[in-house]
């Protein structure tokens, strides 16, 4: 049977709900293994003192992107049935900027704050509390924010469609950028050790 199993009938609604904690477990496990439950380590990304975030983040994107693309090409996964997040240019640009500043100040992002809290870090718990409060603030100001929130929608679209290139070319582009990034990071770290 072709994946995604939740859409093609291989996984009922109970199975779907059961898959959530199992997949989450793997997610949390690998975040913690990589050291992403530790705020100073994550914040080091912004000061070029610890580039773990860059490495973990882009390796994960590469793995999932190449895996999904080739499973789709070999007919094992129908990517058109996988939920593609919808694009809204302006709110996502603004949201990204706010989020980036919050990330810098908090030293953790929402997923990693859960890992930090689960490993006993009280600052992780505080970030989780802040997240909830931030969402409450957003929701209570929603009437006022809504026009901006709903502005510039493009629907579910890939950047490759936007650029007028094939999905395969988009995959190749991200792969090339990530691998160049890894090579540069490696060179940077070696130069710092030797100096």
């Amino acid at each position, binding site marked *: 049977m072709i*994946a*995604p199993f939740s859409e093609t009938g291989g*996984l009922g609604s109970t199975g*779907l*709900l059961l898959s*959530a*904690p199992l*997949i*989450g*477990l*793997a*997610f*949390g496990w*690998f*975040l*913690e293994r*990589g050291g*992403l439950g530790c*705020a*100073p380590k994550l*914040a080091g990304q912004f000061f070029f003192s610890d580039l*773990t975030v860059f*490495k*973990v*983040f882009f390796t*994960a994107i590469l*793995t999932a*992107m190449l895996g999904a693309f080739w499973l789709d090409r070999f007919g094992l996964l129908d990517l058109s049935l*996988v939920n*593609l*997040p919808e*694009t809204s240019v302006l709110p996502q640009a*603004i*949201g*990204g*900027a706010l989020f*980036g500043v*919050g*990330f*810098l100040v908090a030293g953790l*992002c*929402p997923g990693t704050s859960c*890992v930090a809290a*689960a*490993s*006993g*870090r009280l600052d992780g718990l*505080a970030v*989780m509390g*802040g997240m*909830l409060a*931030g*969402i409450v603030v*957003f929701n209570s100001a*929603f009437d006022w924010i*809504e026009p901006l929130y709903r502005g510039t929608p493009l629907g579910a679209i*890939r*950047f490759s469609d*936007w650029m007028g290139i094939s999905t395969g070319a988009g995959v190749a582009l*991200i792969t090339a950028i990530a691998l160049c990034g890894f090579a540069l990071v490696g060179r940077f770290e070696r130069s710092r050790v030797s100096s």
Partner: protein
Amino acid sequence: MNRSPDRYADPYFAGIGLGLALLAAYVFAGRGLGASGGFASVVASGTAVVKGTAAAASSPATGPYLDHGIMSPLHDWLVLELIGVMVGGFLSAWLSGRLRIAIERGPRVSDRQRIAFALAGGVLMGIGAKFARGCTSGQGLTGGALLSAGSWIFIMTCFAAGYTMAPLARRLWR
């Protein structure tokens, strides 16, 4: 927990593990990973308790998270996934000797300041993630690997803002 903690895994191997977890989410659930969506779902359920199910379900801010007025956030895939994340993080920290009650902070801030900044940063991220329809997990990883245009806009503005403001936040971490 008196043993010294294990070394962290190689970041590239951890990244591959994370990528495979994300791929498993695509394959089994037809969706990606997320974190802020789970928080938003908890908030929506909380709103339903405080203001009543009808008010919360009809509000455009919380309604989409309350499927058919079901109030328990345990019906939400992302909330269950987040519980899994916490269990996974706990197990990994426990088995590697990193489980301890502590506050991680930069060398020049007090514990109290650290908690205040953690809260403030969390608030900013909560608002930002709502605007962007996701966070580093839901947009960054999930949408990024699917080549979503908006996800890459998010990734770029997120890191651009972080790096631009970093010199001002130096005292927090260095």
